[in-house]
């Protein structure tokens, strides 16, 4: 019984220590504005990185404005997708793969549709009110009517 009590105390102390772990520090990455998040120009979307992250990972299914969210990804390992993962999601490709593997097993959720072509992405965002995607700043300099840049990074 004494052994059990000791283990109970030990386990509780251990969990308490973990909660206050000092090594959990924030890490941020800084880059020039080389990429842009685009959304439908008619939408009232004003999302920050947290909301973009939650929507891309399908934790959040509507924008805070109430519009149904439709996230689009870019081709795996493309410069745009890599920049989005690092700067907005705060993940690398392996972590994202692991996240979707877990989501598939738990509830059958799959990742956003990948769009390789910039012009197809622009057309999709122009047509769908809740859509968003990432493009390079050079492509953002010539976006068509009906699409606007939400933020650059």
């Amino acid at each position, binding site marked *: 019984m004494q052994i059990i009590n000791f283990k109970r105390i030990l386990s509780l102390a*251990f969990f308490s220590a973990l909660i206050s772990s000092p090594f959990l520090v924030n890490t941020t990455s800084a880059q020039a504005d080389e990429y842009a998040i685009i959304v439908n120009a008619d939408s009232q979307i004003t999302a920050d990185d947290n909301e973009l992250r*939650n929507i891309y990972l399908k934790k959040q*299914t509507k924008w805070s404005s109430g519009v149904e969210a439709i996230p689009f990804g870019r081709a795996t390992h493309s410069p745009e997708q890599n920049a989005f993962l690092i700067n907005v999601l705060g993940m690398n490709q392996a972590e994202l793969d*692991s996240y979707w*593997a877990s989501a598939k*097993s738990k509830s*059958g959720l799959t990742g956003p549709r990948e769009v390789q072509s910039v012009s*197809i992405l622009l057309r999709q965002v122009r047509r769908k009110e809740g859509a968003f995607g990432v493009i390079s700043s050079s492509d953002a300099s010539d976006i068509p009517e009906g699409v606007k840049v939400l933020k650059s990074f």
Partner: protein
Amino acid sequence: MCLGGAGAQAEETLDMHALQEQLQKAMQMIEAQSQHMNTLQGELNALKSETTTQATELSKIQPSAADTTHLEERVFELEEQIFELDDRVGSETLANAFDANNLDIGGFINTAFTHVDGEDGSAFGWNRQNFELLIRADLNEQWSAFFAGGFLREGNVGFDDDNDGVLNESGERRNPDFAIESGVPGGTRNPQIIAWTNYKHNDAFNVKLGRMITPHGIINIEHFPATLLDQEQPLFLRPFGGQTIFPNFTTGGQVHGQFFVGGDTLSYNTYIASAQGAIEEPIYGARLAYEFRDKGVTVGVNAATGTRSEALDNEYTLLGADLLIDKGSILWKNEIFSTDEDGASGRLGFYTQPAYRFNDQWIGFYRYDFLDDGSNASAAVPDNAGDVTEHMVGLNYLPLPNVRLRLTGTRRHYDSTSVFDEADADILQFSTTYSF
């Protein structure tokens, strides 16, 4: 002579007039030609101007290099899509969902080879060969359904000290053995693992009905081996005496949702359900979890009360906490659960499992695991089974994100009791999971 000179002068005068008239005519002709030339020059200039305008207009309708690039990009993607569609469909018919807007099908194959070295013997074999099929169907944005069915051929590590063919009788710990399910062809059973429908009012309010994973802790919610570092669940989730510390799956109703607080997430699950062995007896449970996103920390608290088994008619109350740290190279899972049993001794189980991601393909981990199954707390129960402790080290290798190879080594220790001596067992396991 004088008359002759005057005549000659008159003739010269006449010639001069004629010449002047001719000169005047010539000048008129030159002027006319000059005017004609000017007219022609004007027409020429007009033609030149028109040509320039046309050339300018022509240059406007010619595509720029950027337009050409975009056009090529689109054509390339469309060609790729057509090719992929053709490659997948060929001349065969398409499979259509009856009414679902979206139908996703996947699954995984799970294999394990295990060697156990016990006090009185050893055992080894391909003790796990499972295939599980996962299907999700969405009727619309609000209604969805998820199904997981298994084709399972497996035998967990057990002990049969008296060699009577029955594993894990009270206190057995020395002679390892496996038991593939009996009574079914090839030892394969086909359980319904998950089958639920979900109504999403919004992200904060969902209602789920059916058979579902009991929403407690970390590993039980993750549950499937595609993302687990080790195939063997923690001790408190493995059947001991026929029951785990809480049922891995329950059938009933669940209300769940999440709220977003800045970058953080607050999620909740509440359920009224029943365990497989007690259909008429409800279990009430809840989980509350908060994710500190920037720190990669998720803290959860869990509680439940109800009846696990109609046969044993034992009510229990469960309390538990979990802590997940998932930040950069660190992946650290911790859970602790304790029960208060009606008619039996309380149970306690906990583990801590720190892991380190060396890179995208290699992950190393250690797990300390403890279980007090409650059978040894009373002097009135002399044949108590004793506490169990495990130390596990393991390595995961992912050649592809969907393929996981694992090698684990475990030292299991059974504490001594008034009836049974302490015993150790060393377990070496190689396992693979291929998910799609």
